[in-house]
């Protein structure tokens, strides 16, 4: 225990972005929340609930990107199926919210969600049991993705499935889940998924205060996960992770069981994705199998690449930026926004090989070099 505390306190020195990031993130969220709750609607500084939910969604995506970056950027495992863990976390939360509706559904069935009633289900499937308990559902939101990641990772890493083979298998995984969740027989609402939630822990989901709280919680968790991840990655385990990424075979020859490292990192990443999914659902109000779609998972990878792979801050910035661009583009030029987004991806790849964070690095190093030059001449 003391060892653990000790370990954490050692983390304070790691990562020069950590502190500024946490401070900026939390102050923005607190200010925005205050502006939403305390200021009158017509005030110039008022932040609309629309913006709050939007920001909340972005932060969930940022958390998801963080999860992908940890295993891709740091460990070299390109997962094209992380959307699956996100969606599973989301479904756990969705099931809880669904059960919270109780008999306020359109068919007033106290036990069965509406979609089960009209498809003529008679009883609640076993895997829905217990989901009316918040703690249990939240446990599931991390355990199910974690367990899936563990089983999948254990199989794959032990058999030394690597590279594109692994990537495509993760894609197959999420694709299989997509098809499975589409099936109405599965008992997750089929294509429609779960929606029309009413309240969470007794708080009205449509109330501004609830939304703001969710937003704040997301920000705090994101900051926490960021710090924790930063700490983990700057420990020796982080160095092993990089070693695995760059020369896995060599790492084994100096005595590390790389498959175990990979499995645990994969599980850690999946759990983060699950948490992100669980936070996402109450804020956007729906979870459905579309989240399992392979294209979604590819997009996550792209956020990370745009922001800058291998830097946690890059993943977050990438997620925020791409999603903000999407929001803006779809509203400003609904007919041509794909041109803009596509071009953005191409240009970033061509001109910012290390992503946006790399751009910052380039600029500062250029400035630094210039300064040096001036100093020497």
């Amino acid at each position, binding site marked *: 225990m003391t060892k653990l505390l000790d370990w954490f306190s050692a983390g304070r020195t790691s990562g020069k972005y950590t502190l500024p990031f946490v401070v900026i993130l939390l102050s923005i969220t607190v200010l925005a929340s205050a502006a939403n709750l305390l200021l009158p609607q017509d005030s110039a500084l008022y932040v609309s609930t629309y913006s709050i939910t939007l920001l909340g969604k972005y932060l969930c995506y940022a958390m998801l990107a963080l999860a992908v970056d940890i295993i891709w950027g740091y460990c070299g495992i390109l997962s094209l199926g992380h959307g699956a863990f996100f969606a599973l976390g989301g479904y756990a939360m969705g099931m809880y919210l669904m059960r919270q509706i109780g008999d306020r559904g359109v068919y007033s069935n106290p036990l069965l969600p509406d979609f089960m009633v009209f498809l003529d289900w008679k009883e609640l499937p076993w895997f829905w049991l217990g989901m009316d308990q918040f703690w249990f559902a939240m446990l599931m939101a991390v355990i199910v993705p974690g367990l899936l990641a563990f089983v999948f990772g254990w199989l794959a890493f032990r058999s030394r499935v690597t590279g594109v083979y692994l990537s495509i298998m993760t894609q197959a995984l999420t694709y299989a889940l997509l098809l499975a969740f589409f099936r109405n027989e599965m008992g997750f609402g089929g294509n429609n998924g779960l929606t029309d939630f009413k309240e969470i822990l007794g708080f009205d989901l449509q109330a501004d205060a609830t939304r703001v709280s969710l937003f704040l919680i997301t920000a705090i968790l994101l900051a926490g996960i960021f710090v924790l991840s930063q700490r983990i990655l700057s420990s020796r385990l982080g160095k092993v992770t990089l070693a695995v990424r760059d020369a896995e075979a060599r790492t084994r020859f100096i*005595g590390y*069981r790389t498959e175990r490292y990979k499995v645990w990192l994969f599980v850690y990443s999946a759990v983060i994705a699950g948490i992100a999914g669980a936070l996402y659902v109450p804020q956007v109000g729906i979870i459905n199998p579309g989240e399992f779609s392979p294209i979604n998972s590819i997009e996550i990878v792209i956020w990370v690449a745009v922001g800058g792979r291998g830097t946690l801050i890059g993943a977050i910035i990438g997620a925020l930026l791409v999603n903000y661009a999407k929001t803006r583009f779809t509203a400003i030029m609904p007919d041509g926004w794909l041109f803009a987004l596509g071009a953005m991806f191409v240009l970033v790849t061509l001109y910012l090989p290390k992503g946006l964070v790399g751009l910052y690095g380039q600029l500062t190093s250029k400035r630094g070099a210039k300064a040096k030059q001036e100093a020497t001449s």
Partner: protein
Amino acid sequence: MSAFDQPLQGLRDTFRRDQVWPFLTPEQAKVDVANQMILYVEDLNLSFDGFKALNNLNLYVRDGELRCLIGANGAGKTTLMDVITGKTQCDSGTVYFGQNHNLLTKDEADIAQLGIGRKFQKPTVFEAQTVFDNLELSLKTDKRVLPTLLSRLSSSDIERINDVLAIIGLYGQRFMKAGALSHGQKQWLEIGMLLVSDPRLLLIDEPVAGMTAQETERTAELLTSLAGDRTVIVVEHDMEFVRSIARTVTVLHQGSVLAEGTMDQIQSNKDVIEVYLGEEADA
């Protein structure tokens, strides 16, 4: 008949009186060198698509010995190391580390943790990390996940790394990315990684390739000083170097041992001259 051979053999092995059942042997038990031998390689066979890379190879190495392994290109030296370190699965034969560790049942990480370190023929280091980190990773520590996560560099660790940095002459480059080192520097770094991990048995594949004469000398000194506490097996084609360090030399040819003896014996061996050294041994 032959279909039963393997399981039968397996059964026999299981009940050998001189051995503890494999599943009862403690994973990291101390290496048993009561018989002075640290490495037993017996009847090793390995073929790739019909090509016999190792052919009934037998090799015994004493504890604390410095053994040179030479042999023509393609004789199977690197392949032998691959088998010992668990990189390659052999077709038949046994490899024991001490009397109690059957290496053929273990994987690379296990073998490394038993204390067998290796330097590759083509230097492989973690290019994206600094020289220092490369060494830190190679430290002899608990390499399980959780301990690694919670571990911190102790001052003795740092000291050890600095010592090694001095030995390999990369102190000045310790915060440089290993990928930016020149070929020869990578060779040194790899030797450093070996040193820092404090192994029982070192397998060193062509350490002086690409080194200047003086560096070669230094390497020779280094390796000689290591022997005694540790066992060192060196593969090299540089005869001068081999001569300067060797006590026993084993010559491999076409996957089996062609000759074994002192350097002088070897250098006058007709077969060795014919297939390996050439008419007038080149200096």
